[in-house]
């Protein structure tokens, strides 16, 4: 009987086209959209080469420091290249700015840079900052040269070799002496969160499958349920086999999404495949328990039940960052209790901690939370399902 009911539950679930669309196809479609929209965001946030113009007047031509600095920073072979520089006349520069071919232009008057931009922004700020940096370097060169000449005169050497002093000073100012060590993790791609929320969504959507298969066994929900109720089989067997069928269907859906996101969209889940599978299975169990609970304690028609699961799922995914990654951070930081109770966030956060964190504490915390969530819901459903009797249906 167990296997019989299991087989037919599986068949009815797979033949429900609408259900299969929402649990199988829709997440994959959504993942494709996410990938199209987000795949370039992080690249466009990297510092790009900035288009600028410099007015070529006598001041600029005679200023060796500015000239060589901009030449170096616009050099195509320089790996730290910052600018694409056009040397032009003032009229031409104004025209370029108007057509937005450059972010701004610089005019050197009395060795002081004057910058013109259309508006404020990060590229403009960098251009301004670099021009100041060069001015500051000139200032250092002047200070040091002066000091050096004075030193030589003080020691009694009146035959000062200006050229060699200048060269020495230039050498000092161009010396690389800044020691920074980057200790941040390589896995900083925040758009991954979007795909993690999608996995969470599929796990919880799976609850609908649980609801549908339980409904088939409830006498007050369907004609089939009436027949099952009077059949000489224990309720436990029937319910358990239906629930198992929906759990397996759900796992197939999750697996499909994993395969699609990993192999087609190149989503990075970290390296620990075993832990990811455990999380997906526990997450699906949480979704299933939600579905079973809604199916058993809510006495209403199937549409209302599905609606409830959909709303809980969507709200959970929203809070864990599906419609804007910052949402998850805001909640985590300010009202962490909400996300500690939110099953969608437990799944998202579990995947996030596998991807970003080196330690497993946070992952284990999430898996245990999911297990507690699922267990509590299953116990409540069990209590309300057992010894259920109908005086009339």
């Amino acid at each position: 009987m167990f296997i019989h009911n299991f087989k037919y539950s599986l068949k009815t679930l797979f033949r429900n086209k609408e259900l299969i669309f929402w649990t199988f196809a829709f997440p994959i479609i959504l993942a494709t959209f996410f990938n199209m929209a987000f795949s370039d965001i992080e690249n466009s946030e990297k510092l790009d080469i900035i288009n600028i113009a410099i007015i070529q007047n006598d001041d600029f031509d005679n200023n060796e420091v500015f000239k060589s600095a901009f030449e170096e920073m616009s050099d195509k072979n320089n790996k730290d290249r910052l600018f694409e520089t056009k040397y032009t006349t003032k009229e031409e520069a104004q025209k370029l700015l108007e057509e937005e071919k450059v972010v701004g232009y610089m005019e050197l008057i009395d060795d002081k840079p004057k910058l013109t931009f259309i508006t404020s922004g990060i590229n403009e700020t960098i251009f301004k900052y670099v021009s100041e940096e060069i001015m500051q370097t000139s200032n250092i060169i002047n200070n040091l040269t002066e000091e050096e000449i004075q030193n030589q005169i003080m020691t009694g050497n009146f035959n000062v070799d200006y050229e060699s002093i200048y060269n020495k000073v230039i050498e000092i100012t161009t010396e690389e002496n800044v020691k920074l060590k980057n200790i941040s993790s390589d896995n900083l791609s925040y758009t991954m969160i979007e795909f993690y929320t999608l996995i969470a969504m599929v796990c919880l959507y799976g609850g609908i499958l649980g609801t549908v298969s339980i409904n088939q066994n409830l006498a007050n929900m369907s004609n089939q349920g009436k027949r099952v109720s009077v059949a000489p089989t224990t309720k436990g067997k029937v319910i358990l086999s239906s629930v198992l069928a929906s759990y397996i269907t759900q796992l197939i859906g999750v697996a499909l999404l994993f395969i699609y996101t990993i192999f087609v969209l190149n989503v990075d889940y970290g390296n620990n495949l075993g832990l990811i599978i455990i999380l997906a299975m526990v997450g699906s169990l949480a979704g299933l328990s939600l579905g079973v609970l809604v199916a058993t304690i809510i006495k209403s028609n199937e549409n209302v039940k599905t609606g409830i699961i959909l709303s809980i799922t969507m709200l959970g995914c929203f809070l864990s960052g599906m419609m804007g990654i910052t949402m998850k951070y805001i909640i985590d930081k300010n009202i962490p209790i909400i996300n500690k109770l939110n099953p969608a966030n437990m799944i998202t956060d579990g995947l996030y901690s596998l991807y970003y964190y080196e330690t497993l504490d946070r992952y284990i915390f999430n898996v245990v939370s999911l297990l507690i969530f699922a267990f509590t819901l299953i116990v409540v459903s069990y209590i309300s399902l057992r010894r259920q009797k109908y005086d009339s249906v």
Partner: protein
Amino acid sequence: MTVFKTFLKILNKNKFIIILYTLFLIFFGGFNMQTSESNINFVASKPDIMIVNYDEEKGITKDLIKYIEENSNVVDLKNNEDAINDALFYRDVNYVVYIPKNYNKDFMDGKNPEIEIKSTGDYQSSFAEMLLSRYIKVANIYQKRINSEEELINKINETLSKKSEVKITSKLDTNILSKATFYYNFANYSIMACLIYVICLILASFKDIKIQKRTIISSTNYKTLNRKILLSNSLFSIILWMIYVVLSFILVGDIMFSIHGIFYLINSFVFTICATTIALFIGNIVSNKNAISGIVNVIALGSSFLCGAFVPMEWLPDGVIKIAHILPSYYYISNNEVLKTLELINLNTIKPILLNIIIVLSFSIMFIILTNIVSKRKQKIG
């Protein structure tokens, strides 16, 4: 009247869907806007930097912190590695500077101590790194020559105080206009989803085989019936558009009363027409009520994602933008983007806007023709 009453009845049954999409628009399109002061003067961009100082705050350490504070937004977080890592991942900070113990002393001894940093790798963090390197570089050069701490700090600050002069040419307040663009871009989703959902549902209800048989034998001419359905649907579209326009006046503000605002209205109105024709077309080919919500989501979400309604167009990959050209939403959103930075309004500058509007109208005509072809084929029942 009977037709219109039925229309209202179905509409009333589905009012939650309309309210839901409208709430989405208010919540995401309206409140997601960053507010900042107007930019007639130059405002330097400031990266968000967090400083973790293990040294005593005096001497060079104090001055370095002061320099970073002046040129960036210093973020204050709990000094807890998990909190810092999370903040970095979600871009709450762009750059973290760890000043090591005894930094001041080691620096003055000429050891040039190493500083550990964490960086998000985006342009804000590159700028933050420029700031930090600049200070250390200048300090290192002077440190070799000056022994007195006080004199050294004075010298560093004298050098770092050299500033460039900046002039801004734009008189346009792009901030408020980007608000309007953001709102109307998001409206792309709400308008499409609402119209397709409701209109498809209404058409599907009228196409229910029992109801269709009844309407066919009734004394009402099928042309009259079709005209009435079309009229009530158009009325619905216009009312929806008007609601969204009123909302934009509330959420975006004064700028909507300017000539820019008028263009936003015209543009969205033309798009509403187009969305209505799309809805009528889909309503004519789909008669299964259960399939409607799936179709709505795929079409509305798809064209919103592809055409830059959620993620700004400049951030989309080139390939996606190319595909987007076949969708009317692309031309509608392009217009919003043009309006955002449009400074002078004359015949020459609004030409691209008019062109896009014509394209959206052509899409509408195409969908009307397609609808007619399909409905002609489907006239027979049984």
